[in-house]
């Protein structure tokens, strides 16, 4: 069954052959309804096991017991059966959308089959490993067969940039700010769609968490599977090296106006007087991001909860140093193994307002949670949670 799915996908995509893969990251274990559970259990019944290292993306339950998931029976039981089926298939119980920060970092140039749009884009762009955007069910089918269709981003020629996304027209202070990367990512995804571009005009490495935020936002607003940043990402020592032709097909010169519009587009709430919650951690928070959160809260009591979504890899470190207790003491709700847009965690308010620093949460929260969103920096999110009303620091592009 797994090989038929891989072969049928290869036919659909026009791939001439299958290639061996080194690992997979599997997005198929998130409960969307009974069909996915039945599919995974069919594989288990057939005696299937993964042939390569396979980490799991988020599930619909917080198996660490940090947060209360409002998923009622029988859906709760079906979600648990689904997670159990993927465990039986031999997948690692990583339960994170940031596997690349949980020790799963394939070597540059290796072929892998990853799902979860942000993980795919990070794997290709920041690690330089080669994967297409593997959809649910093909990811596990590739894991079981150890093979993937040879097409798309597995082929070096298809990894070259055709567009230039030039941010040199933006102020250095904006580019150094935390909101620059999710906002630019959202704009980038909308501008390039599924094309491959190279970002130019970036002075230095903005840090792994910034690239994580850029990729996640770009993969939400577009179909981005790979980006390059000249002088930063491994396949683009400079723009010329990675461009497919001497002249790019188009140059997108990013202006402060474009940035302001993209930033505005991340919010759907119209000037609310109060907020009901803050959600951060899409992709899952790294230990460094959890440190920033604790530093910004500085022991104060929050008026509205901050839902801080992370993986068990970061939770273990947080518990070791007592950070979990301190954060929860302030009113932070730690969410592990899952997140607030994939399963019901936040109260069903009907017209709630959610503040977030994540371009990806900003994109999906309105449709998945019913909350209107306000986009802001982490610092503004924390101040707003302390006061219970939105506070914005002006950061001009």
């Amino acid at each position, binding site marked *: 069954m797994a090989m038929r799915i891989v072969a049928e996908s290869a036919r659909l995509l026009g791939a001439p052959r299958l290639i061996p893969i080194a690992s997979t990251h599997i997005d198929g274990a998130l409960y*969307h309804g009974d069909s996915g559970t039945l599919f995974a259990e069919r594989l288990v019944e057939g005696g299937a096991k993964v042939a390569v290292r396979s980490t799991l993306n988020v599930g619909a339950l917080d198996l660490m017991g940090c947060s209360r998931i409002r998923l009622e029976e029988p859906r709760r039981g079906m979600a648990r059966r689904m997670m159990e089926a993927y465990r039986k298939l031999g997948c690692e119980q990583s339960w994170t959308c940031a596997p690349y920060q949980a020790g799963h970092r394939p070597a540059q140039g290796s072929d892998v089959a990853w799902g979860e*749009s942000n993980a795919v884009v990070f794997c290709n762009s920041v690690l330089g490993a080669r994967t297409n955007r593997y*959809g649910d069910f093909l990811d596990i089918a590739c894991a079981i067969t150890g093979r993937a269709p040879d097409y*798309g981003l597995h082929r070096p020629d298809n990894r070259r940039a055709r567009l230039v996304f030039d941010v040199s027209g933006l102020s250095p202070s904006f580019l150094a700010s935390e909101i620059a990367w999710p906002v630019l990512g959202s704009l980038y995804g909308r501008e390039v769609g599924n094309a491959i571009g190279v970002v130019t005009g970036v002075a230095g490495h903005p840090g792994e968490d910034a690239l994580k935020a850029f990729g996640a936002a770009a993969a939400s607003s577009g179909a981005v599977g790979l980006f390059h940043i000249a002088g930063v990402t491994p396949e683009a020592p400079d723009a010329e090296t990675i461009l497919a032709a001497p002249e790019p097909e188009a140059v997108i010169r990013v202006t402060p106006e474009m940035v302001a519009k993209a930033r505005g587009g991340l919010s759907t709430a119209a000037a609310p007087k109060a907020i009901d919650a803050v959600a951060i951690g899409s992709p899952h928070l790294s230990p460094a991001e959890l440190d920033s959160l604790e530093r910004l809260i500085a022991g104060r009591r929050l008026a509205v909860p901050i839902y801080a979504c992370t993986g068990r890899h970061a939770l273990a470190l947080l518990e070791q140093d007592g950070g979990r207790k301190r954060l929860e003491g302030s009113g932070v709700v730690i969410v592990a193994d899952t997140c607030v847009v994939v399963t019901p965690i936040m109260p069903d308010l009907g017209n709630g307002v959610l503040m977030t620093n994540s371009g990806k949460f900003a994109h999906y929260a309105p449709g998945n949670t019913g909350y209107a969103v306000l986009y802001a920096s982490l610092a503004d999110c924390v101040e707003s949670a302390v006061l219970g009303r939105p506070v914005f620091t002006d950061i001009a592009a």
Partner: protein
Amino acid sequence: MSAPAEILVPGKAGEGEALVLTAPISFWGGVDPKTGRIADVRHPQHGEVIAGKVLFLPGTIGSSSASAVLMELVHNGRAPAALVLHEPDAILLLGLISAREMGWETPMAVRLERDRFDGFRDSRTVVDTNGSIDLVPNTYDRPA
């Protein structure tokens, strides 16, 4: 209006009102798997229901769980009557491939040039098992 189209994933012939989306969509987070309603508030067709429609897609974006949402729509009897895409979508169509493996009846997915989508807008449309896409003649215009 009639167009021969290439079959991407074979399935059951389908008839329904054509719903031509004017912007790409992420099925996960964009379509409610229980009802088939377009839930993405930023999408131009927000609030429309894709169940039973001949769905013309200008492209898909976003999550790699689009396949799971489509398979769930099939399982819940809320799938489109047929899908018309301008290029094969490796993620979305896996939902049909996997549903077929489960033995469930799936709609056809066919390929058509994007500039031909408009000719079908809001018209009753049928997609045959041979891949052809045709307007269903208005019953009032039919000769007796």
